[in-house]
């Protein structure tokens, strides 16, 4: 909720540039990534991989949202999305988009809402 601000680390941009090879946005399958998309590793990290790729595979053995991954790795969404695009293209991770609110113009599935409701009521 904090106000937009300049990056506090002036070297951040150069770091991002190196991490992404200068790419600013993901293409293909990763362009639909949402902050709530769950990422799940499909393969183990391999020696010689880019450190961040390795880190993503390690952290996503159990499904983890893009938002959590970004917070843990200290990477903004768009930079992380570029890295995830590499892994998605290589088939190393699977991305599960959040269950959408509207499918084919209808409201959310009643069974899903029922499930959410009973989960909340157990809190």
């Amino acid at each position, binding site marked *: 909720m904090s106000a937009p601000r300049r990056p506090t680390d002036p070297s951040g941009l150069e770091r991002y540039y190196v991490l992404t090879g200068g790419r600013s946005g993901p293409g293909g399958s990763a362009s639909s990534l949402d*902050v709530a998309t769950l990422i799940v590793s499909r393969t183990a990290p391999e020696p010689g991989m880019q450190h961040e790729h390795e880190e993503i595979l390690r952290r996503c053995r159990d499904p983890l949202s*893009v938002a959590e991954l970004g917070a843990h790795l200290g990477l903004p969404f768009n930079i992380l999305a570029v890295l995830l695009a590499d892994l998605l293209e290589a088939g190393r991770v699977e991305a599960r988009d*959040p269950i*959408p*609110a509207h499918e084919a113009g209808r409201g*959310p599935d009643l069974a899903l809402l029922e499930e959410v409701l009973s989960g*909340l*009521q157990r809190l």
Partner: protein
Amino acid sequence: MDFKGFDHPGGPDAGGTRSVKVMIAGGFGTGKTTMVRSVSDIKPLTTEETLTQASADVDHLIGVADKTQTTVSLDFGKIGINEQLVLYLFGTPGQERFWFLWNGLFKGALGAVVLVDTRRLASSFRAIEEMERQNVPFVIALNVFPDSQQHPIEEIRDALDISPHTPIVACDARDRASSRDVLVALIRHLKDRSAVALEPR
């Protein structure tokens, strides 16, 4: 090393876990982060987006370190609904004018809670307008601050110009059970809407 789940991508480990998302919106200082914090199972985290990358142009160099870099933060938390389903809660950035820059911020959300501070109704006008514009179903949660005066809900509905179908509930965003009840009100509202949509015309 233990690589559980890697051999059975569809198995019960990594499982078929899916996510749903709910947005917590409202004006500056209405208690969005407080609500995320009180109801989340995890310590709330922050994720960021740098806004100069709003256009996804692959050839555009991001290394141009000039003054136009702005960062917008989203505080978020999560609630384990059951073993197969996780609910993510995202507190929207304070400045509503940046919402549209975060591509698809509200897309795919089940719905939203719009927090309102009854001492400063106007601070949530923009959030309400934005929900209506983006067609996001929402409930209004009046965050009752210690020095808030009691207003009849219908008075507030008039003042905010809220449709009679949109629920308005009072809450204390600092309180877990109270925040949970707001989410319950939102999901009930979504159910009602779905039920209406499914009725034959």
